[in-house]
C-alpha cells in the first residue's frame, strides 16, 4: 500500500471512528454467509425469501420476536415478543448460542452455534438484509476499504495449487498412495451385511432426545413428516394402495441404509455433526417409531445390528423391464390405421393445471413427484 493510500485510509478510519465504535455489527458478513449454510435448510433470506420450516429473515433486526405475518410461531416465541423481545445484535447472539436456553419451547430445533465468531459473523451477514441495520452498515463501510486492502494482500499469499507428482507403480505412476487415516475419514459407508459398521451403541431413549432436537422439525414428532419433508414411519401395508406411503418401516429393504444415510447426510444442513453412538441411538429410535422394536431400553450396537431385518426386504427384485410385453415383442411398430376409431382426448392438463404461472399451481401436488 502506498503512503498516500495509508494516510488516506487512516484519515477515513479516524473520521469514522466514533460511528464505528457505536456500530452494532462487528462480524464478517462474508464469513457469516458460510455459517448461514447451516441455517439455509430452514431459513431463507434475501430477495424473494419466503418462509420455510423457519421464518424468512429479511429485516429481522429491529423486528419484535414472533411478529411476522404468515409464519406459525411456537407459543413461546409469540410470548417472548409480547414481553418485548426485539431482535438486535445482543438478543440474537444469545439466541443463536443456545436457542432452547433462551426461549424454552421454541420450534427451532437447531442446537446452537458453538463458536462466538460464527455467531458474530452470521449476525453481520443477516444484517446486510435488514434495513434497520443498513444505516449503521453504511456508516461503517467508509472505514472498510482499509480492511479490504489488507485482506486482498493476505489472499495473495495463499498456498499454491497442489502440483502433480509421479510415483513408482501403476500404469502411469500418477497419484499418491492414500493414507489409512485418509481412507478412514472418507470411507464411512455401511453395507447390509454390516461391513463398515463402527464400534458403538445407542438406545431408543437416547435416540428420542436426539430426534426431538435434530430431526422432528422436518420429519415430525412421530416420523409423520412436516409438509413435503420425508415421512419416516408408518405406511405399513400401503405399497399396493393408490397412494402408497414409502417409509423406513414400510418400504426400505435394509437397516444399514438408515445408519449410512443419517451418518453421511443428516441432519439436513449440518451433515457429519452426529457421533457414531448418536447415529446408533437415532437408528434405534427410528426402529421404535416403526414398531420394529417396542422396548424403550432397546440398545442397538454393532453387535446386534445385522440381527434386525426390515419387513419389506423380500419385495425388491432385479430390473426385468425387458420382459414387459411392449418391449418383449421388438419389431416393426404399426404405421397406419393403428387405432380403429378416431382418437379422443381423455385427459387435459388444464383440468388439474399445476404448471408454474397457472392460477392454482400452489394447490398442486395432485400426483407424482421427483421423490
Amino acid at each position, binding site marked *: 500500500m502506498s503512503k498516500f493510500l495509508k494516510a488516506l485510509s487512516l484519515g477515513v478510519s479516524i473520521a469514522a471512528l466514533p460511528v464505528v465504535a457505536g456500530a452494532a455489527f462487528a462480524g464478517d458478513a462474508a464469513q457469516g454467509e458460510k455459517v448461514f449454510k447451516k441455517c439455509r435448510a430452514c431459513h431463507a433470506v434475501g430477495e424473494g425469501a419466503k418462509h420455510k420450516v423457519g421464518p424468512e429473515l429479511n429485516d429481522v433486526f429491529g423486528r419484535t420476536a414472533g411478529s411476522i405475518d404468515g409464519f406459525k410461531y411456537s407459543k413461546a416465541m409469540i410470548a417472548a415478543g409480547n414481553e418485548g423481545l426485539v431482535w438486535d445484535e445482543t438478543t440474537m447472539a444469545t439466541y443463536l448460542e443456545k436457542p432452547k436456553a433462551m426461549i424454552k419451547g421454541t420450534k427451532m430445533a437447531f442446537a446452537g452455534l458453538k463458536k462466538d465468531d460464527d455467531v458474530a459473523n452470521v449476525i453481520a451477514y443477516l444484517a446486510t438484509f435488514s434495513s434497520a441495520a443498513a444505516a449503521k452498515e453504511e456508516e461503517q463501510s467508509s472505514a472498510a476499504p482499509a480492511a479490504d486492502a489488507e485482506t486482498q494482500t493476505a489472499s495473495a499469499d495463499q498456498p499454491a495449487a497442489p502440483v502433480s507428482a509421479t510415483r513408482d507403480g501403476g500404469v502411469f505412476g500418477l497419484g*499418491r498412495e492414500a493414507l489409512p487415516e485418509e481412507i478412514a475419514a472418507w470411507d464411512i459407508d455401511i453395507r447390509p451385511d454390516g461391513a463398515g459398521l463402527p464400534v458403538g451403541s445407542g438406545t431408543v431413549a437416547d435416540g428420542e432426545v436426539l430426534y426431538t432436537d435434530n430431526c422432528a422439525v422436518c420429519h415430525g414428532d412421530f416420523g409423520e413428516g412436516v409438509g413435503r419433508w420425508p415421512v419416516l414411519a408408518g405406511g405399513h401395508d400401503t405399497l399396493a394402495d393408490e397412494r402408497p406411503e414409502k417409509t423406513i418401516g414400510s418400504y426400505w429393504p435394509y437397516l444399514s441404509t438408515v445408519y449410512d444415510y443419517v451418518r453421511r447426510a443428516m441432519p439436513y444442513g449440518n451433515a457429519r455433526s452426529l457421533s457414531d453412538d448418536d447415529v446408533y441411538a437415532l437408528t434405534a429410535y427410528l426402529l421404535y417409531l416403526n414398531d420394529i422394536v417396542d422396548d424403550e431400553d432397546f440398545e442397538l450396537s454393532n453387535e446386534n445390528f445385522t440381527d434386525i431385518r426390515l419387513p419389506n426386504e423380500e419385495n425388491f427384485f432385479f430390473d426385468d423391464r425387458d420382459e414387459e410385453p411392449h418391449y418383449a415383442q421388438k*419389431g416393426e411398430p404399426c404405421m397406419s390405421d393403428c387405432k380403429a376409431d378416431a382418437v379422443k382426448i381423455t385427459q387435459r392438463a388444464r383440468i388439474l393445471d399445476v404448471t408454474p404461472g397457472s392460477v392454482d399451481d400452489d394447490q398442486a401436488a395432485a400426483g407424482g413427484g421427483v421423490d
Partner: protein
Amino acid sequence: MSDKTVSQSPNLSRRSLLKAGLATGVAAGAVGTARAGGDPLITEIQDWNRYLGEGVQARPYGMPSEYEAHVVRRDVEWLTASTESSINFTPLHELDGIITPNGICFERHHGGIAEINPADHRLMINGLVDTPLVFTMEDLKRFPRENRVYFLECAANSGMEWRGSQLNGCQYTHGMVHCVVYTGVPLKLLLEEAGIKTNAKWVMPEGADASAMTRSIPMEKALDDCLVAFKMNGEALRPEQGYPLRMVVPGWEGNMWVKWLRRIEVGDEPWHQREETSKYTDLLENGKARRFTWVMDPKSVITNPSPQAPISHGKGPLVISGVAWSGNGRITRVDVSLDGGRNWKTARIDGPSLPKAMHRFYLDIDWDGSDLLLQSRAMDEHGYYQPTKNELRVSRGENSIYHNNGIQTWHVKADGTVENVEVS
C-alpha cells in the same frame, strides 16, 4: 432503441409468454404483406445501423442477447420441500440441434451446490484395489482423456405424469434431460492405475457435497464407458453440474452421475445406499419394487410446437421439431403422428447420430389449420420403441415415479395454442 427499453423479464409467466407468442404472430402477419410506403424497419435507418456498438471486452464472458432473457431453467415449487434438494428443468422448447448450453442444463441437487476450489479437491480410490490412491485435479489431467457426447436424463423425468397429463409444457414434462460433450478420463484407466482385485465386482462413486451422494455401479459398466469428467462443452463443469469433477455413466439414470466426485470405492457387493433403495426403485402395482433399473429407455418429445411454444404463424408450412434419446445406443428412427397415434410418418433425423446422445428430428408439414394430436415415437438400435403411456400403466401401475418413457401427446388447436393431453 439506444435507451434499450426492453420489457422482457425472465419471470414471464407461461400465460403471458403464450400471449406474447400470439401477439408476435399478429405482428409477423403484418410483415407478410408489404405496407404502403414500405416497412419502416427497412426504409428508415435504424440506430444499430448508424451508431457504434460496444467494443471487444465489453462482454468478457458472453451472455445471450437480452431478447433471450426468458430462456431459463424453471422449477416447480410445490414438488419439493426445499430448493437445496430439488430439481429444475431445461427449456427444451427454446433449443435446437442436440447440444444443451451449459447455463441451462437442468439441475438436481440433494444438498445444494458445493462450491469447491479445484486446488482443494481430491479424488480417492479405495477398497478392493492393490494400492489405494489419491489424485489431485492436476494428476487427473495427466491421464489420456476422451471427448464424448451423452445425454443425461433424471430417472424421474416425466414422473409427474404417471397419473395423467398434469404440466403444460415440455420444459416441465420432459426437461430433466440435457446433452453435452464431456471431456474426461476413462474410469477404467483410474481403476487400472490402482489395480483392481480379482473379487472386485462393484464400484461406488461418492460426492463431496452435503448429501455425500453415493450409488453402486457394476464393474462391467465401470470398465465399459464411464468417464470421470472435468469439462462440459469445452469449458470447466459448471458448479451446479459438479465442478470440478463428476461421473459420467452413459445411458444410465442421472442420479448415478455423481457430481463433485471425491471418492470411488471398489467392492464385491452393492452397497444398497439410500438412493438405490428408498429412492430410484420402481414400485409396481402389486406392491413389489424393481431395483437397479439403470438404463434410460428410448424416449422422445416434440419440443415445437408445444404448450410453451404455440404456433404463431397460422396455417401453411410448419416445422415440427423434437428430440429423442436412448440409453441403449443410437436412435434409428422417430415416427410422428398428427392424429393421436392412428397413422405415423417417419421423421427426418438431422445432425450427428451418436450412441446415448440426443438426436434432433424434424417433420416438415403443410398445416391446414385444423386440430392436431401430435405424438412422437422413438426407436433405438436395440429394436426397442417407445410404449404408450397406457401400456406402461398396464405393466407397472401408476406409482413407479421413475422411468416414464411413454409417448407424449400435444393437442394443437386451430388458434395455434397447444395443450398437454392424453388420448384414447
